[in-house]
């Protein structure tokens, strides 16, 4: 799985390099954004359920090439700081301009990112072992700025991230594992150039 991901990233990088060497028309693009992951969590039994709000910090940098006037593809690195898991998704994504007129200063983009969130930066309490999982992140973004210059970016997307946690055994426990699916609305602000 991780090898597949690394392979995809390598292929993407190679593709970019290849494309750039053969066509100077391909322009490097970068989207760097910070924001929050907003959601809720419901825990407990059906008769005693507790619902809590959740906000987590997220940061992401997308580096790629503008393949066509409307489509950019690239690789991405994120940091998602959930309350009990610090995950680092690596993946690939695309930015597609929904407006046909690419010369407008305000443009609406469709974004689609996917990858695997690693727990490399996570420091777990004794007895806990956090492993990452797959991530998908589709959404929309507003790019505000002249097409040929740097611009501000506002993005609103849905982020789904899975993780697995092994928990310490107590009492009569034999096995205690948790499968987490973080379902969040992701709102980010950043710059693009």
């Amino acid at each position, binding site marked *: 799985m991780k090898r597949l991901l690394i392979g995809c990233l390598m292929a993407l990088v190679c593709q970019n390099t290849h494309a750039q060497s053969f066509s100077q028309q391909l322009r490097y693009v970068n989207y760097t954004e910070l924001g*929050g992951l*907003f*959601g*809720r*969590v*419901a*825990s*407990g*039994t059906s008769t005693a*359920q*507790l*619902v*809590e*709000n*959740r*906000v*987590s*910090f997220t940061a992401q940098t997308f580096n790629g090439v503008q393949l066509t006037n409307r489509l950019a593809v690239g690789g991405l690195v994120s940091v998602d*700081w*959930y*309350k*009990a*898991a*610090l995950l680092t998704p690596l993946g690939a994504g695309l930015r597609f301009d*929904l*407006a*046909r007129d690419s010369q407008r200063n305000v443009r*609406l983009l*469709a974004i689609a990112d996917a990858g695997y969130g690693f727990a490399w930066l*996570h420091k*777990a*309490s004794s*007895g*806990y*072992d956090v492993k990452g999982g797959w991530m998908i992140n*589709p959404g929309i973004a507003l790019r505000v700025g002249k097409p040929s210059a740097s611009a501000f970016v506002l993005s*609103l997307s*849905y982020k*789904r991230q899975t993780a697995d*946690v*092994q*928990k*310490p*055994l*107590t*009492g*009569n*426990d*034999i*096995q*205690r*594992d*948790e*499968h*987490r*699916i*973080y*379902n*969040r*609305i992701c709102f980010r602000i950043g710059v693009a150039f």
Partner: protein
Amino acid sequence: MKVNRLLFFLLPFLYLTACTDNCKETRKYRRYSPVTFTANQLRQGVQIEPAQPLVNPGKIYTKDQYLFINELKQGIHIIDNRNPSAPTPVAFLRIPGNGDIAVRDNILYADSYMDLVAFDISNPASVQAINRVQDVFPNGSFEGGWWSYDAANKMVYDQKVSYVSETIDTNCDEGVNPTGGWIGWAFTSMAQNSATSDKSGGSTTNGVAGSMARFALYDNYLYTVNQSTMQLFDIKNPSEPKIGNKIQMGWGIETIFPYKDKLFIGSTTGMFIYDNVNPEKPVQLSVFQHARVCDPVVVNDNIAYVTLRSGNQCGGFTNQLDVVDITNLANPKLLKSYPMRNPHGLGVAYPNLFICEGAYGLKSFDIRDVMNINQLQHIEGLDSFDVIPLEKSLLMIGKDGFYQFDTSNPRQLRQLSRIPVTPPTYY
């Protein structure tokens, strides 16, 4: 207009995703319920039966290409292992309350709650009970459930163990409190605020036990440990075991591992080292103390390997491998600890060490440099309780079956055979 239409298609999925974290914890645990037997009822229950499938296997023992797999509190599966790739069940020896095994020559010793029973296994298909030492074990435990013997009323009070698996929704937060840190501090604070709430004399031959064994053979004695004492049996005449000395050892004794003329005892509070120069009366040399957890021990040369695990009657929260220098037996020293998941039995076949991680599989290590023990392989997806490393193979027992591995390449253990548990009781 075109943009608006595209937006129209994009927006619904934002609503459909229901931005609620979904965290489910799967927990498997033991549940106990009381059960009572009369001594007569238990003693009359010993018999040889046709081979039966494994249901709830306990410890393993091997001798002369035969395997003895304990069926917890039920008896012993006798298996012909002359071909490790295709072990053949021979018979099932029903012994109520059995948990441990030792074999010298053709005599098998087994506990049956409060009694020690000797069997003649010259013909493994037709095992005969030849002797019984009565009322020698006052109490014990199986799978964390305790039993005790009331000698006055000839009654055994036991706890029946059942396994429960449940899945609960959690709040995804257990384990970390990331309130310290840089930018994340603000966000995590926001989140918190917004929450709504051997020297075997002469030509005798002994079998080989795993590290979880409570029985050990040395010289003319069978050593058995229960929760607080070491009970010796004189087996000069193997078919006539006689009760020997009893040595008080303190509470929480779990395992016994004989190595050369020493006995290494695993307890919930530490590792006891006994000098066994006089096999009739072992003498305590030292104690290596640790946090209150379960700890089987194995020894190779001047190094003892002790696994500490939490849970059940073990208590504690420690799960690790301790490497202990026993060059000076009177003063064992901890060299290094390595974190583990939930280590149970272990076995050493230098330069390799094999550790059972309970429900989390089996691990093999390179122990040539004890200060830098390298994990060579982690086999997940199987349950492992105890191992016996042989010359080129590894016997392993777990809740989901008995496995044999070819250990020629310790980086890639090759499964030779498996006797599955049938039916699976809880996994």
